[in-house]
């Protein structure tokens, strides 16, 4: 899962980024509305956390431009402007959720997680697919036999992306774009290593390799 955090308070942005990373989200940060608009349009983010009071271009403008160009990325507005008429404006501009400042990090993470699950057509509660249950808090996966496996941050991101997109062919490029941050080294060989390790934990048959296309997370073996 790759998230764009648009926040002009650097100190807060660092904290949120750290929290998002430890919750298993690859997180890019920008403080500038113009850059945010560009990144959100060019990079395949899974979600955007958007502040409204931004330099250069307001958050509502950025969001409006994305929606006008048909960009459906889920957007959670995180702002101190929390009057109800402002919330209404936010949703009118195309926001999917709205959180007023000050906020608790758990609520932000819970709302972000819920937003992503909704977007991928999953109902509330922990993420479950093909008999696997992913615990986002402890970053572990429970297999059908009841065994609990710990996951590294990258393994967790990768598995969550697989589980949110079961049965779909995911190219290596798409996977690395959703799992790594903007300036990370996107070496596809490294990705293969993570897939191999993941197979070791959840069972080889669950992630199928499609030569020349990528990988498929299989719902039924």
């Amino acid at each position: 899962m790759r998230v764009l955090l648009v926040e002009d308070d650097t100190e807060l942005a660092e904290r949120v980024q750290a929290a998002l990373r430890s919750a298993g989200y690859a997180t890019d940060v920008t403080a500038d509305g113009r850059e945010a608009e560009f990144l959100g349009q060019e990079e395949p983010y899974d979600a955007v956390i958007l502040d409204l009071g931004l330099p250069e271009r307001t958050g509502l403008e950025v969001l409006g431009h994305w929606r006008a160009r048909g960009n459906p990325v889920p957007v959670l507005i995180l702002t101190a402007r929390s009057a109800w008429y402002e919330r209404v404006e936010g949703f009118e501009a195309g926001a999917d959720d709205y959180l007023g400042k000050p906020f608790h990090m758990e609520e932000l993470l819970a709302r972000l997680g819920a937003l992503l699950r909704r977007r991928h057509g999953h109902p509330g509660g922990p993420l479950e697919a093909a008999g696997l249950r992913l615990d986002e808090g402890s970053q572990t996966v429970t297999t059908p036999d009841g065994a609990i496996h710990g996951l590294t941050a990258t393994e967790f991101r990768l598995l969550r992306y697989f589980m949110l997109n079961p049965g779909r062919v995911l190219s290596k490029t798409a996977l690395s774009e959703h799992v790594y941050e903007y300036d990370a080294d996107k070496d596809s060989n490294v990705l293969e290593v993570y897939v191999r390790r993941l197979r070791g934990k959840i069972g080889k048959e669950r992630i199928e390799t499609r030569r020349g296309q990528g990988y498929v997370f299989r719902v039924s073996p």
Partner: protein
Amino acid sequence: MRSLKARLTLVLSLALVVLLGLQYYLVSGAIRSTAEDYVASRLRHDAETLLAGLTWKKGSPRVPGGTLDPIYSRVYSGHYYAVRTPESTLESRSLWDTRLPVDRVAPGASRRVHLQGPAHQSLLVYMAGFRKGGRPVTLALAEDLSPLNADLRTFQWRYGLVSLGIAAALVVLQWLLVALGMRPLDRLRREIGALEAGERPGLSEDTPTEVRPLVAEINRLVDVMRQRLERSRNAVGNLAHALKTPLTRLTQLGDDPRLNAEPELRDRLLDPSHAIEELIDRELKRARLAGGSPGQRFDADRELPRLIRALEGIHAERGVVIEADIPPGKTYHGDREDLLELFGNLLDNACKWARTLARLRVDDAPGLCFRIEDDGPGIPEGARHRLTERGVRLDESTTGHGLGLAIARDIVAAYDGEMTFATSEELGGLAVHGTLPPLPS
């Protein structure tokens, strides 16, 4: 009398009646005196003829036949004379057995009197004193005015009727003129009503010179109020924003895992942060309330569904359904931001506590009457009254319900409205009834 129109109409009508009455009186008087003068001058001529023909026989006056018109000989003809000397009196045959009371008039003097004559005749009597043949003599000549009076009365009737007709026509005409003249004021009154109700942003300046300064001043005041509200809202908004950024950092600091080992320190950090947060939320929201100032309009039918979409987004994870029943075209003369804040807080509270359903119902009645219910656990009756108490400290309000309802209460109070809490009969949770009064008409 408060109505300018009624006052003007009354004063003008009175003036008209007085004027026409005066004219009636003067015209009648002038005609009567002209007619009497004419009669009197004829009588004077007759007196001169009588004097010329007067002869003396043994010291008594005599009027030879043929001196005067024969009408003076016909009984009760209406033409009479009397000649009086200190010793005797001679009267015309027409008087028959009645008498013409004649006072002595000094020679050279003359008098004109009205007397009751024979056969109920109303006589004009001309009396004059002369000296003839060395003796003083008083001549009195009278003529019956009854035929003249009858003519005069006929004339007065006609003249009176015509005057009344003219007066009625003029009263109607001036009432129309007053109504026409007041039309700009009537329009102004309607416009002020529309301004109050938020149906127009200001008053039309296309008014007569007399009221234009008033209209301009009202427009200026409405503008000033609007600008002042906008300025103070911006200032308060900026202040809230500026305060919340450092406050967010403090809250984040409190959530830092390094503080897990120091729960007391965490509380000492987070408690005041929360207190400040609630104060900012409540007090600054209260400060930015517009209340019911003129030129505002809340389009409930349009705005509430948008608000509900936002609320459904915020509560999407819990899957709460919001049912809304809003009369089509329902509007209220309140500020859009105030009322969105009111409904936002109440519905948000309902969604937080609802298990599956929150319901909003706006009545199709004057003012703004609404009911918001949920199927949550509700609030026990004993704790409910605290929600409506004024000045309850936020941390004392029922946990979870507190801040949103406190803000809603402030907004309702700013509009002189009422809000009560009860248990929803249909859904079982909390039911909030609110009533904001209509414009005083």
